[in-house]
């Protein structure tokens, strides 16, 4: 195995160099300053003692940290979905969505515009806004897109929307205008002035919900510009449109209806009671409502399905555990094989702490490098456009790889190195120099 003998040769060269350096340092009296530089060749040659095995360990660490990053990021996203959802927001939907249209509810799902005033009259409600979703696809049936058509009350009902007052004005002044979030603009390659056709079909939206007065399946929107993504990774893929335009384009008998209402309340502690009051007010109407507090809806969405969020930590943990054993085993083996070399270093006057640091660095470097590159891979993977994902994974929210997540994984890498190096370090501490040198 030529690589190995080369590695050992290099190691011994650096040992000789160290000895020379050390002698020089003692004369110069600046031991501390250059100690970091002195140790580096030792660490480096130890890492490359068996290049193939080092690279394999590093690859395994990299892959595991990529997975760790994705899982922790996913968990962070789910957490954000719940924390960012607000207690003072309510959604109003049809309580008895039904397939049979009636005169009060022509699609069985929609709510009449007149309901807005009825909800507004309820005590504690500060804003009510209607929205309608034009759901379909853009260019390719795999690229699903929805335009969230909103009315002029939306800035009050949902003030976090990232549009400036001038942009709101522009949106309501341009009938078919839309604003697209940065993420969507990037993903679809859209810029201001582009046309955004959304093709609806019953595969994406209940029958009648996407239909137009002219019978065409395609809705032509005009991109007015980009808006920044909203804070917290929520609604990264949002297209805001104009409810007036969408409503006027619908068949005459289906005009005047909202898909849902978004309600803001003054006092978050009263939200649940207000939800009950809204539902009571509509009990005997043609369209009884079901009012859902935003926070409960989000928590429900995250937890009531098969909870992916609950699985992310155990998976990330299992991946790291695997790596812990692997690096630990690698370091232990390396220290075991080089006991005599450590004994020589001790004889030469290297301090105990220096040798410990040497072993720790040998464990930490592949862990940190693997964590950094693995996280980089994870970031790249989250940037992967939707069309490269398997269709079944399209509903996966984008893992949020914030600086926090990055530092958590680097911290984990250091802990991992420490845990992996602990036993070898312990063994080294109790090593008897004379016995080892004598080959006992």
């Amino acid at each position: 195995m030529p690589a190995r003998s080369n590695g050992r040769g290099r190691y011994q060269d650096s040992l000789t160099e160290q000895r020379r350096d050390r002698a020089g340092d003692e004369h110069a009296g600046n031991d501390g300053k250059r100690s970091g530089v002195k140790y580096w060749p030792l660490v480096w040659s130890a890492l490359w003692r068996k290049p193939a095995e080092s690279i394999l360990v590093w690859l395994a660490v990299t892959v595991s940290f990529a997975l760790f990053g994705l899982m922790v990021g996913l968990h962070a996203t789910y957490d954000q979905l719940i924390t960012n959802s607000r207690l003072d927001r309510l959604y109003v939907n049809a309580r008895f969505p039904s397939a049979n249209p009636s005169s009060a509810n022509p699609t069985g799902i929609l709510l009449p515009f007149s309901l807005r005033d009825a909800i507004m009259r309820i005590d504690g409600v500060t804003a009510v806004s209607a929205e309608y979703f034009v759901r379909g696809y853009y260019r390719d049936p795999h690229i699903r897109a929805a335009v969230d058509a909103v009315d002029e009350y939306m800035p009050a009902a949902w003030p976090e929307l990232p549009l400036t007052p001038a942009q709101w004005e522009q949106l309501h002044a341009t009938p078919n205008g839309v604003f697209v979030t940065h993420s969507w603009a990037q993903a679809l390659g859209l810029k201001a002035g582009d046309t955004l056709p959304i093709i609806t079909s019953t595969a994406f939206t209940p029958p009648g919900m996407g239909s137009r007065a002219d019978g065409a399946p395609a809705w032509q929107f005009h991109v007015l510009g980009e808006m920044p993504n909203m804070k917290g990774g929520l609604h990264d893929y949002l297209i805001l449109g104009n409810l007036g335009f969408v409503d006027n384009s619908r068949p005459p008998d289906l005009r005047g209806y909202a898909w849902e209402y978004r309600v803001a309340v003054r006092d978050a502690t009263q939200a649940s009671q207000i939800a009950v009051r809204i539902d009571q007010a509509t009990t005997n109407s043609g369209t009884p409502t079901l009012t859902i507090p935003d926070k409960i809806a989000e928590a429900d969405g995250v937890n009531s399905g098969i909870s992916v969020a609950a699985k992310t930590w155990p998976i990330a943990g299992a991946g790291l555990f695997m790596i812990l054993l692997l690096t630990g085993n690698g370091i232990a083996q390396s220290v075991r094989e080089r006991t005599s070399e450590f004994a020589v270093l001790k004889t030469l006057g290297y301090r105990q702490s220096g040798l410990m640091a040497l072993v720790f660095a040998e464990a930490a470097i592949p862990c940190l490098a693997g964590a950094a590159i693995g996280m980089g891979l994870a970031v790249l993977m989250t940037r992967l456009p939707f069309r490269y994902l398997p269709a079944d994974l399209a509903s996966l929210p984008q893992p949020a790889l914030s600086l926090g997540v990055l530092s958590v994984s680097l911290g984990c890498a250091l802990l991992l190195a420490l845990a992996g190096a602990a036993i070898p370090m312990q063994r080294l501490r109790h090593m008897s120099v004379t016995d080892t040198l004598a080959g006992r």
Partner: protein
Amino acid sequence: MPVLTQTLVLTRLAFLGIAQRKWSALVLIISVACVIAVLLSMLSVTAGMLRAYRSGEDPQQAVVLPEEGARRAHAIPTNIIGTILDAPGIARSADGHPLADGEFQIWVPPMGPYALGSPNLRGIGPVGFALRPNLKIIAGRSFRSGRHEVILGVAAARTFQLRIGDAILLAGGPWPIVGMFTDDGSMLESETLSDTDTLIADRQTNGYDSIVVKLQTPAAFDNFARWIAINPSLMQIAVRQSDYAELTANRNSAFFTALAYAVAAMMALGAVFGTVKLMYAAVSVRTRELATLRAIGYQPLPVALSVLIETVVLALFGALAGVVAAWLLFNGKHVVQARNVFDLSISLRLVALGIAWAVALALLGGLPPAIRAARRSVNDALRAV
């Protein structure tokens, strides 16, 4: 057969010396166990769901559904059931009635706070009980046709905190819960049941969601399905009950299954790198032993095979540990997915899948070290030690 004999001898030697490499071997076993445990624990959702859908499965039963592309709520007009009952091969009850039943499903809005959730409501007809022999009323009584009444599955009662005497609220008013039922752990236990015709009348609609049919023999299915498919007055298709269960379970768990495979594949890639490293080390420790054996006439192929066999055997131990861990932690655990309540299951199929993954992982990870061990020149190897 010198190759086989030599392989056996070399494999035996490898395992005799494994005590010296016990930590590496243990690391390999645990790495594989982690991969398999993660894979199986995630797939136990799919398997559990499938088991709940297939519970009480009868090979003689088929389900008639709207054609692909016409799948919307209540899409089978009630007036075509007469035509479907004319289809060949349908079994008959003792009093001569064909065993076929139109079913209807709706979502029930939550009764209490929204967070509590709510069960589905399924309408079944008079033949429905005959088609579901496991369905047993365990408290109260069954619903009566023509009355706004429902019975409640035990899993729904537990999950949505409902009991006899409560009522579910539909557009037309409250429907009291008059009884509780079990169905041998099937998905039906997470639903509420009522009379189809009463429910359809209340909803002012005129369509079923599916029609369940009992056939005279399982073999009668092909003829029955063809008759349904080619009948120009019908826009429906027939599927076997087992296929329908699989279809539904796969549709409801597709996302989770895809995620399980993606995550396990990444973990397995890490484990493959780890395995290559560990086996390289194992081979390198045995350099002198292997070189000596080569020098006395052992061929390269048995050397390579013995390394591969060692890796596979260690990985199998890992798979076993992974299966046991996943089984202890997850098998039989209750989960609620949307409105379906079921138990996670580590099925035999999953165990086989876990073993297949472990073997594949071991072969990928063991191959480079095996090749290195076999190709190493005897001279160099003997000199190196």
